[in-house]
């Protein structure tokens, strides 16, 4: 079992180290890092904007590049949070709490170099988990019938939508909306055109890229325009020489890194609790075990490293259900899975068997990519710091152009640019009504497969809806769904009795900027990401 995994991994390294694949991986990490550093560009926006670049590639190259974009953007976001106090991605909200004070003390470079190491360690652990857990999971999942897959998807959808931020009911509503949007187009079973309103361009359904760029591009620009003062780069002048940590720093970070990694990997195992929750739990834990909890928020290096390690460990862990079961835990994973589907690869437990080059190549490229990330960030920090200073008034029009040309280039079709425009407007409306659009993507990607499996399950059971609770495995999943809903209801109905710390972490999540003492860019905090 272990030996086969290692042999497969060896082959994976063979795939990932092929010159052109290595190049795509490097390009992905580099571009992801570059775009991710830009203030206001979270991983979702970065991946969506760079997604069209991968359409011309072979599936392996495309997914390697996109994965590179993802963790590049993730790390770029950390730079932005630590140096500018601008969290573009919710998991980084807690990174700001201690990261920015460190920057003010002139130790931002150290915080960054140590967090790159912490991230690398966390990610490595997550990758190792992926290597050994995925084959096991696949072996189990291959026994699943339509009913089991259906209940499992239901669990995934529920977890993804209720455990994300904001109201769980609204999250579920957005998921349902996403499934409905996924229904648009020709029905695969009967050929009926659904909700196309006579537009032949909609026969193939709404394009993933149009949806993603509308929701995380246009809507996001509308949300952020004129909302922030000029970015304050007073403290962010970090040079290469500032990045060398002292021995004492290194010693201090060993245990926080380990703790963060473990927390992250545990959070990854629970469906739906992605990197955001992992980083919050990590910060709270670190504060609890610290001998000087009162110093947190004033620039404790532990408060930066632990959440960063947790985030990366949990992100890698999130790949496990995404790749082995075809069930993404959050919108970022849904986007990556959607990109694979655009390449004509069906997600699900059969993926590892049918496309071992993709799966194992991806796993191997994670390591290569994470090493590249370390190698890139140390010498290039000076350039990234310069990028931080690009004003938003230059950024968003250029990004808007990338959105337009990207959507057009996907199918050489102007109609889809219009589609993106409409979705963007609609997405901004949703943001104003306090919905988080990320679950839409989750529902959109999973919806068609959910419907297909539901229909099949009903056909096999001769129309008996009880099949979902009669089959034991399926019943367990349904039970977990019920438990999840019951827990949510319990949490809502329980009188709000929270410790001061929980409140602090929560306010940090919703108002990271105010916490840092800089009242700007409040709109950023409603960023529709995860």
């Amino acid at each position, binding site marked *: 079992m272990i030996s086969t995994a290692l042999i497969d991994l060896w082959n994976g390294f063979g795939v990932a180290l092929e010159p052109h694949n290595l190049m795509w991986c490097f390009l992905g990490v580099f571009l992801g890092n570059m775009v991710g550093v830009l203030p206001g560009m979270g991983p979702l926006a970065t991946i969506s904007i760079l997604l069209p670049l991968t359409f011309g590639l072979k599936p392996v190259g495309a997914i390697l590049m996109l994965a590179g974009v993802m963790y590049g953007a993730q790390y770029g976001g950390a730079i932005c949070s630590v140096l500018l106090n601008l969290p573009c991605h919710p998991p980084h909200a807690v990174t700001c709490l201690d990261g920015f004070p460190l920057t003010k003390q002139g130790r931002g470079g150290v915080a960054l170099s140590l967090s790159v190491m912490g991230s690398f360690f966390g990610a490595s652990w997550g990758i190792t988990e992926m290597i050994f857990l995925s084959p096991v999971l696949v072996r189990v999942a291959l026994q699943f019938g339509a009913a089991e897959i259906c209940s499992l998807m239901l669990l995934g959808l529920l977890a993804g939508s209720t455990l994300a931020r904001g109201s769980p009911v609204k999250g579920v509503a957005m998921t349902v909306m996403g499934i409905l949007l996924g229904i648009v187009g020709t029905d695969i079973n009967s050929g009926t055109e659904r909700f196309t309103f006579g537009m032949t361009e909609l026969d193939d359904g709404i394009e993933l890229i149009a949806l993603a760029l509308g929701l995380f591009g246009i809507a996001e620009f509308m949300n952020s325009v004129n909302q922030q003062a000029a970015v304050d780069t007073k403290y962010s002048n970090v040079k290469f020489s500032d990045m060398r940590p002292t021995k004492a720093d290194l010693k201090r970070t060993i245990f926080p890194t380990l703790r963060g990694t473990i927390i992250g990997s545990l959070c990854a195992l629970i469906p739906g609790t992605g990197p955001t929750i992992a980083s919050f739990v990590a910060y709270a834990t670190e504060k609890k075990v610290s001998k000087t909890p009162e110093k947190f928020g004033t620039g404790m290096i532990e408060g930066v490293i632990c959440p960063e390690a947790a985030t990366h460990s949990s992100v890698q862990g999130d790949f496990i259900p995404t790749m082995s079961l075809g069930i993404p835990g959050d919108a970022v994973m849904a986007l990556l899975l959607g990109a694979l589907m655009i390449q004509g690869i069906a997600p699900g437990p059969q993926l590892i068997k049918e496309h071992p080059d993709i799966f194992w190549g991806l796993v191997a490229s994670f390591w290569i990519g994470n090493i590249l990330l370390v190698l890139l960030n140390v010498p290039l920090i000076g350039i990234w710091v310069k990028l931080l200073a690009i004003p938003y008034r230059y950024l968003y029009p250029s990004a808007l152009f990338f959105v*337009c040309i990207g959507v057009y280039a996907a199918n050489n079709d102007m109609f889809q640019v219009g589609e993106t425009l409409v979705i963007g407007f609609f997405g901004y409306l949703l943001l104003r009504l306090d919905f988080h659009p990320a679950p839409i993507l989750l529902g959109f990607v999973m919806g068609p497969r959910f419907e297909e499996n539901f229909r099949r399950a009903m056909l096999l059971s001769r129309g008996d809806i009880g099949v979902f609770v009669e089959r034991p495995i399926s019943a367990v999943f349904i039970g977990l769904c019920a438990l999840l809903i019951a827990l949510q209801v319990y949490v809502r109905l329980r009188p709000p009795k929270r410790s001061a710390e929980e409140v602090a972490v929560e306010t940090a999540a919703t108002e990271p900027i105010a916490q840092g003492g800089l009242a700007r860019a409040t709109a950023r905090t409603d960023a529709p990401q995860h």
Partner: protein
Amino acid sequence: MRAAREFAGRPSKDREERLLRRLISKRDFYAGGMLILFGLGAALKGPDYGSGTLMHMGPGFMPTALGVILILLGIAIAGTAIATPAGVDERILPDHPQWFAWGCILAGPLMFIIFGTYFGMFPGTFMCIFVSALGDKTQTYKSAFVLAALVGVVGTGLFAYLLQVPMPILTWPGAS
């Protein structure tokens, strides 16, 4: 819950009126309302596609079911709007509505579509960036122009030459 108790002692007409006023000042009321509208649309249109039976589901089954779920969720969200006390941030519009900037951002892709279709990639790019850039309060016509020209040249070079996007760089309506 608290709201219900608060209103219990008052005459019913006054109560209804206050309840209504309370409701329409809530953001969640509109959020729920929007979901109900979408749900109604899906649930009413769904059966047209043929619902089939539970064993042989038609293409209309899922949309109808999802529409009904959406309506129920909408009712739940709008319903909780009554029960919760007035929140801090119930306004739908932000503190400083940016109508002009929003218009500019939405006009950007529109310009790309129009100019891109009739005049080619460079004019489309230029107009898209120029128009959307005007939305920023600190932007001047000059800086928007320079930005549009610069990104237009670089972007056209990148996408037309390097990535081979099949779109004429410069054309004229009627010319082919």
